[in-house]
């Protein structure tokens, strides 16, 4: 029952927002409707535009490109983050030597890298993948590093007393511990992979959701911009739901509280 109530309330908030938007842009409350609509469009126009985009089939290709870029950026970034996170957590010296460089690299705003990546990797998907990679890599890297370092000392001592060698410790103790940290940051890192893809497209490309939004903006097509943003939001929510599902199936061993908080 509370679940249903919650859903009704959630939808209600969205409807009220759309209604307000509609009333304020269609009726002459804050100026002549034509003028207001130039700046804010109307919810019905935006929905209509979304419908045409899907009905004409035009948007599918762009969605596919953005999805491919996001998935590639996430996989490569997470893979690199896991490998280097493990390596640095297990080799004290390596971590100490590279510490200032990693901090400096992570502090760099990624947007400034986008033109460089476009130069290196061209205007195709790989410059966007590279941008997403720089975002995802550090999140996963820091989480794996932390996860390996903060393995419970008692669990570790117990595993060693059970006769596990370094390889077995890695498999039965360090890896699962690090994985919890990776999963706890999964929503953030997948989100950043998408940000990297869209920002990259926005700054220079010929396909993808970011490109669609940029294209509409350059001709002051506010309806097109909002339509692109709406599609992007729904896309993000769908990906996030998928991530939650993967997370729940991987972390079945976790206490119920954290699961209950998410559902």
């Amino acid at each position, binding site marked *: 029952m509370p679940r249903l109530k919650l859903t009704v309330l959630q939808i209600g908030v969205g409807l009220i927002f759309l209604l307000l938007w509609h009333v304020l842009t269609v009726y002459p409350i804050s100026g002549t409707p034509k003028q207001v609509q130039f700046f804010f469009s109307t919810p019905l126009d935006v929905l209509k535009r979304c419908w045409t985009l899907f009905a004409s089939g035009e948007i599918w290709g762009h969605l596919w490109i953005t999805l491919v870029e996001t998935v590639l950026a996430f996989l490569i970034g997470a893979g690199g983050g896991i490998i280097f996170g493990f390596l640095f957590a297990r080799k004290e010296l390596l971590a100490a030597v590279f510490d200032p460089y990693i901090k400096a690299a992570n502090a760099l705003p990624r947007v400034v890298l986008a033109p460089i990546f476009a130069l290196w990797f061209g205007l195709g998907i790989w410059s966007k993948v590279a941008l997403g990679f720089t975002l995802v890599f550090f999140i996963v890297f820091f989480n794996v590093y932390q996860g390996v370092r903060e393995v419970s000392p008692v*669990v570790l001592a*117990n595993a060693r007393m*059970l*006769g596990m060698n370094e390889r077995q410790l890695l498999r039965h103790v360090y890896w699962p511990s690090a994985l919890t940290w990776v999963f706890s940051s999964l929503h953030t890192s997948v989100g950043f992979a998408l940000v990297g893809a869209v920002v990259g497209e926005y700054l220079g490309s010929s396909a993808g959701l970011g490109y669609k939004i940029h294209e509409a903006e350059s001709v002051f097509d506010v309806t097109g911009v909002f339509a692109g943003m709406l599609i992007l939001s729904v896309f993000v929510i769908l990906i996030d739901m998928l991530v939650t599902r993967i997370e729940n199936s991987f972390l079945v061993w976790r206490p119920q509280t954290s699961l209950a908080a998410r559902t």
Partner: protein
Amino acid sequence: MDQATSLAAVALNDVAITFGPKVGGYTAVSGIDLSVRPGEFVAIVGPTGSGKSTILNAAAGLLKPSAGQVKIFGNDLTSLNLRSGYLFQQDALMPWKTALDNVAVALESKGVARSEALQRAKEWLGRVGLSAFVDRYPHMLSGGQRKRVALAQVLIRDPEILLMDEPFGPLDAQTRQIMGNLLLNLWATDRKAVMFVTHDLEEAIALADRVVLMSAGPAAGIIGDFAVSLPRPRDIAEVRMEPTFHHIHKEIWASLRVEVQKAYSQGEGA
């Protein structure tokens, strides 16, 4: 003396353990001479901060003594003592593995094939009364059930020495009794050398063949060694009614009380 030392499952000779710098560090224990024969159940009792667990960790090879030697069946202990099984006070199960996997992995690390390890882990979980809980993750089990899994995890490796660090400390009184009897029953079928650390004198007498008493720290040492002449098999609850139990308890308590007060007054001073 030499003969007895070489036969001992665990022998600590003049062991001292200092934390921190060699000079000016905190000396937890010093001058420890203790030997445990194969098949003997020794309880180590002392006030808080008397270094009971420190001694146990030295016997496990988790801590290196700053002076003296640790010998396991006559051999110098240089790394982890893998002839022993260690039951920790805190939860030490891998939270991401089911009860069954937690126990099976203890055998897999010995090179036993997974299918056989799972089979034997099932048997062991049955022996500790958890047949119905094999697929549960640690957080789905009660504190007592987790201790049973930990016990199975340690015993399935068939160690020659059992090291136990207040293993039933966090449990409630009834569960402690049940666990104590379970431990005695399992031990009776295959007598291993046991070092059992506890601050509970009654538990120590009820379980052990010998109770070793430690002084209050710092630089704690052994100040008493009492044989427990109660017959076996014992029932933890019933053995406490025996006149012999009371007699031994009174004798040890007379010494322990002084140390507990010493530890207490130091705690207040600090």
